């Protein structure tokens, strides 16, 4: 434990800026993955343990698109939409068969999908590490803010994630379709009886949730290594985020993702050995005090 280092970091603007940006960098990708997880749980009542597979799918699709086209924009869009599409197919043909079944059935189906996806990636892309590489647009020296340095790509990543998060929030809170989706989360039968095609809506929500994971994957592709099984590590952390933030709450996911981001960024300086323990500890404490998470509702179903 080195609280002195922590204090001295916080008192220097250079250090504070760099570490705060670090927290955002870590937090934002987690937020993207966790918000999708949270959305799917909130509306469909499914804990999508296979969510990491969509993150992986997004990253690989972005990687191959970038190799083929050398366009980051296309790679990003392909990763996001590709993961979304796979999500819809997965929902229609598999997950929809276990709605309302006990949680173990859902868990098992997701486990099966993880196994299948990892092997498919190994067959299609091979077992070796892949790295997409930094697109030329972002091949700039890191930007300086108050003495601290933030790479240009990370600035883009943070802004993009926050914008997507804000769009998602606005869509859910302010648009008619968002209102319908919130209603769907609470009383799907009633929503159907009002003439709304709930089947389609479920597929769409699952698609958007997977798309968010795909977005995280394609945003991560230029800086993270692609391997079969890469979905696992991010799944565990985003799971912690979702539980802390409250299953079903987008804002909760944001707050919790930032909490984890700050814990890791400043933990690296002040208490490097306890970071992991603190994350699990926070999760346990939240579950004990408020099982539904910081901003979650008790489950109605």
């Amino acid at each position, binding site marked *: 434990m080195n609280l002195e280092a922590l204090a001295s970091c916080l008192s220097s603007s250079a250090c504070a800026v760099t570490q705060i940006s670090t927290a955002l960098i870590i937090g934002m990708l987690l937020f993207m993955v966790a918000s999708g997880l949270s959305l799917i749980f909130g509306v469909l009542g499914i*804990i999508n343990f296979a969510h990491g597979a969509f993150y992986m799918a997004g990253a690989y699709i972005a990687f191959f698109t970038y190799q083929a086209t050398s366009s980051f924009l296309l790679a990003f869009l392909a990763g996001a939409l590709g993961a979304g599409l796979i999500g819809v197919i997965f929902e229609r043909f*598999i997950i929809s*068969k*276990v709605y309302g*079944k*006990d*949680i*173990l*059935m859902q*868990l*098992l*189906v997701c*486990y*099966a*999908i*993880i*196994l*299948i996806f*990892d*092997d*498919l990636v*190994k*067959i299609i892309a091979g077992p070796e590490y892949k790295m997409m590489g930094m697109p030329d647009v972002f091949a700039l020296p890191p930007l300086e803010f108050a003495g601290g340095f933030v790479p240009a790509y990370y600035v883009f990543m943070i802004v993009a994630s926050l914008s997507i998060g804000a769009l998602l929030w606005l869509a859910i809170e302010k648009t008619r379709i968002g209102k319908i989706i919130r209603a769907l989360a609470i009383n799907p039968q009633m929503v159907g009886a009002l003439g709304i095609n709930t089947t389609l809506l479920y597929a769409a929500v699952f698609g958007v949730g997977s798309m968010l994971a795909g977005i995280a994957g394609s945003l991560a592709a230029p800086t993270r290594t692609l391997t079969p099984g890469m979905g696992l590590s991010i799944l*565990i952390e985003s799971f912690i985020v979702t*539980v802390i933030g409250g299953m079903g709450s987008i804002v909760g996911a944001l707050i919790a993702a930032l909490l984890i981001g700050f814990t890791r960024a400043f933990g690296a300086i002040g208490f490097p*050995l306890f970071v*992991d*323990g603190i994350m*699990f*500890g926070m*999760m*346990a404490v939240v*579950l*004990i005090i408020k*099982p*539904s998470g910081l901003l979650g509702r008790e*489950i109605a179903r």
Partner: protein
Amino acid sequence: MMKAGFLRDLFFAAVVLIVLIVVPFIFTKPSLRDFLIYVMAYGLLAMSLNLLVGLTGLVSFGHAAFFVSGAYMFGLLMQSGRVSIPVAILITVCGTAVLAMVIGAICVRLKEIYFSFITLAFQMFIHSIILTWVSLTGGDQGLRGGIPRPPFFGIDLSSGASLYIFSACIFVACILIMRQVWQSPFGYTLRLIRDNPNRANYLGVDIVRMKLGVFILAGAMASVAGVLLSLFVSGAYPEFGFWTTSGEAIFMIMLGGSQLFVGPIIGAILLRLLEHFVSIYTEYHGLVLGVVILAIVLGLRQGIADYVVDFLQRRREAKAAPAKEAAFVKKRIA
């Protein structure tokens, strides 16, 4: 009644034990023994978890925490060289029971998926302790240097055959204990809690205490499974306590069936066989296993043993149905 039931169980247990011991002497290939010991260890883990999942409706995602605690406690005790094997097992089971009591006291108050989450959190916490506390546990490399098996009461477990027989005896004893719980008034109270907690509450059942009781019991049984495995592989590894191990146990329950007492064992055998043969033929065993899981979940929609039991019951009912329907019609007309 109880007594007759117990005698019958005892008889079955004796038969199973004899079969378990005799089979490897007929088919003498050592790999069969290896296979059976694995099935016993993982089967015991899955059965103990099913006390929570199938009997009480508590879906624990973190049951491997007790499996790993069993393996490490036992391994460390044996490596200390101060105790004999039976004493080490006794201490391990009691120690894990205490651990399960502490964790359970917090967990069983939570409902449904929150219970699942918090058990998962505790398991990951224990797993990260094992990884971090290198000086005690050996960190990611596990307990190294082998687990000594000093002879006791003239039994020397360093021979493969006696280790196997010892494991089979412990396994059958544990199954017998769990069977008694499964059939006892305590077991029926747990089923009531699973099916209708409000009614249980109304009848004056102390739900939290009952849940805690079965949680401790299941944890203790899981620790025995951990002991068996660590004795066999002569080591203990953090992976024993990773969430994938819990996942595997859940998978065994689902594969076999949660409502039949022996379902998880059937699941353990099926999964082990499946993995064994699939991994001989292809490195893409994940793909094959995944497809099999989907086929079972989406096709049968329940464990294989549960499916067979239901199927037989449906057939019996279908035979009895015409008579019943006639009676029903008569009643309506009247």
